[in-house]
């Protein structure tokens, strides 16, 4: 059974990558609610997907402190300790990209969520382990953004 699983693993990875057929280097979603509230949804969805929120960078506050006017702009850092340790131990070239990050950007009463598509890194790493990891992150990020769109879908429908 184990052997069988091993043999289909690359196929599963390919399927995951294939599922990103529409993927771009940037994954984005628009949420029809104020950014302060959207941020709470983001944190909740990240945790529901098994990740820990490491910290939230207050970019807007930092800029305001130095006299630059900025609307709500936060970056949520999140990850799984096992994955971060795997990266730092075996693939230091990926360390600049962990923990993962979602930018939460206010656009008036709506919120723009943007995240780098981990699959943008695929061409640089031949190792199957990395390919699978990047595919899994991509799949989770797409799911998080989809969930946030669904969670706020009522709002979208009401506005249409």
């Amino acid at each position, binding site marked *: 059974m184990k052997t069988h699983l091993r043999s289909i693993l690359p196929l599963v990875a390919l399927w995951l990558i294939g599922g990103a057929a529409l993927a771009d280097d940037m994954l984005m*979603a628009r949420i029809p609610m104020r950014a302060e509230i959207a941020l709470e949804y983001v944190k909740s969805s990240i945790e529901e997907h098994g990740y820990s929120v490491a910290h939230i960078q207050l970019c807007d506050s930092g800029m305001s402190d130095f006299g630059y006017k900025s609307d709500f702009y936060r970056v949520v850092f999140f990850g799984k300790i096992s994955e971060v340790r795997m990266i730092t131990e075996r693939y230091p070239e990926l360390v*600049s990209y962990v923990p993962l990050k979602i*930018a939460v950007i206010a656009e008036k009463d709506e919120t723009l969520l943007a995240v780098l598509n981990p699959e943008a890194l695929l061409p640089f790493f031949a190792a199957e382990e990395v390919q699978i990891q990047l595919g899994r992150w991509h799949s989770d990020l797409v799911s998080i953004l989809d969930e946030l769109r669904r969670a706020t879908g009522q709002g979208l429908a009401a506005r249409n």
Partner: protein
Amino acid sequence: MWVAGGAAHAAPDGRELYIEHCSACHQMQGHGGIGLPLPNAKLRDVTDDYLFKTVRLGRPGRVMPAFQRMSDAQVHAIVKFLRERSKTTEPTYSDAPIVGNAEQGKVLYAEHCVKCHGEDGSGEGQGTGVTGSRERSFLVMPASISNSGFLQSISDPMIHHVIEVGRKSSDMPAFGAGKLAAQEINDLVAYVRSFEQRQVEAAALAPDERPTHIYESPYDFDTTVANVKAALTGANFRIFPDRLVEEGLIDEFSVNTRQIGVRFCNFNVLYGMLKTEPRLGVVLPCRITIMERKDGTVLLAVPNLRVVSRWFNNDELVEMWDRMEQTFVSIIEEVTL
């Protein structure tokens, strides 16, 4: 297999595809944001073929990505959704070939068009068209009519029509009705089309470029961290409190204290960059990670901005980060000398 087969044959839902791929930039009702507005008046002027090719080819270097991996059916579904939402019908343009004199067109362009579209056709002023990136001396942002995605999407008769009747959606005046003769408009079409021969491709990456620069420090961990901070201060960066790579992901007693991210910023530069590329936060590149390995070696890792900037499809950001990249490399080389 059966499920996959069933899904493959389901008609794509244009509204869902628009929500997923377009609404983040263009907003659900097409009011625009990072992306340009898509008002009904504009949709009335453009053909389905133009919309299809625009989605497919994007606008290279101008943020709008090329959705080349979507199926034709999916792109058609988005176009259909745009038509239904805007309650517009596709205009038809003559198939008759347009023959004009580009040299004559150049003179007319300088007289009537250059003020808004710029000498190189890239649009008014500096910037990519992203929200906030331009000097807004105009109420609207004139399109980049020299962009390869635009030129491959638009037909000559459609360019002729737009010049002739103008664009209500962007306050572009009409140049027909007595202002310019039909042949003069043909000459302008020929000149606009000649931008195709003057396309400047963004500098390609070298084949051996990696997404991260990795350096080995000749010093121990603590000295390396101190050297990095000194070099950053010397380069006029403000340094934030240290942040461990594993911090927040595991309890404070188990966290690896020999892997640290030194974060730094120059707020003036950051503010300018955010105007050019609001999505900058997805990378936040101003971080040098310092790691002590099990064998005692100390590595420094810094993102390769030449690689990262290409993911934004934003030529102006590429220029900015190519310059910043040199600063980063200088700092690391100073630290590891």
